[in-house]
């Protein structure tokens, strides 16, 4: 359990270090290896952030699909917001709706909330256990179930596979 946490933190820190330096000379790699091994062992002795992550090939495959779906949604909804900003009548219909998520792990909920926030048109205002309160710039369904179908499900079906 803890090996997994330390391992994933180590990989992230080491990748960050290499990208920041931009070179692959020996001193840089050795320093990076040592420092990014010490930091997770020191600070991440009891953390459980990555504990629910699945490391199967299917999960990796779905991570890539998720990134593509997310990028597509990002571009699409940015175009939508652009249309709203430019048009002189300002066609907005804002409101706060309540949606429900099936995801159990904390990290998956965090990623879901961040994805909802980064696609313009919706952003997460508050999280209460399995309910998310979402501010929606163009409310189409006030009902919990229908709003869940519109906002959450396009991301949830992939995150369900990657996390438990």
């Amino acid at each position, binding site marked *: 359990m803890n090996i997994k946490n330390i391992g994933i933190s180590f990989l992230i820190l080491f990748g960050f270090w290499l990208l920041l330096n*931009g070179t692959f000379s020996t001193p840089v790699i050795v320093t990076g290896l040592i420092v990014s091994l010490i930091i997770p062992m020191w600070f991440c002795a009891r953390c459980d952030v990555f504990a629910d992550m699945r490391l199967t090939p299917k999960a990796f495959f779905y991570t890539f699909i998720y990134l593509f779906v997310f990028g597509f949604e990002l571009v699409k909804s940015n175009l939508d917001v652009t249309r709203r*900003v430019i048009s002189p009548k*300002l066609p907005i219909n*804002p*409101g706060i709706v309540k949606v429900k998520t099936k995801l159990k792990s904390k990290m998956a909920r965090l990623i879901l909330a*961040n994805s909802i926030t980064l696609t313009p048109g919706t*952003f*997460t*205002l508050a999280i209460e256990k399995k309910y998310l309160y979402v501010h929606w710039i163009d409310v189409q369904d006030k009902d919990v179930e229908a709003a869940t179908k519109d906002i959450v499900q396009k991301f949830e079906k992939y995150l369900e596979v990657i996390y438990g």
Partner: protein
Amino acid sequence: METLKIIGAVITLMGSIALLLGALGLVRMPDLYNRIQTGTKASTFGTMLTLFGLVFIFPGWTGKLIILILFVGISNPVSSHVLARNAYRAGVPLTGKTTVDRLAEDMEKKNVEPKNDAQ
């Protein structure tokens, strides 16, 4: 080589147009929450595109530019979420056009229930 640079420059131009539209939304929208919708997120997208365009122009800078893109993309949703939540708790009003507010309804319920228990 030259075409690749022009493609990068055009992507950067699209990013700066997105930034301009985000700022325009910031000025035009009626209340704080809609300003967050258009303002911060369109500008995040714009900055990500601007930096992504530079990847085509300077392939040697890819590492640092990717770090910047990831950093902007991860930190900005978090900061706008925290700001919106705390502003809502502090009572920043919603616009008059708002159609539905489930959070206020649920908060009201929670405030009512403990009172009933106390009596």
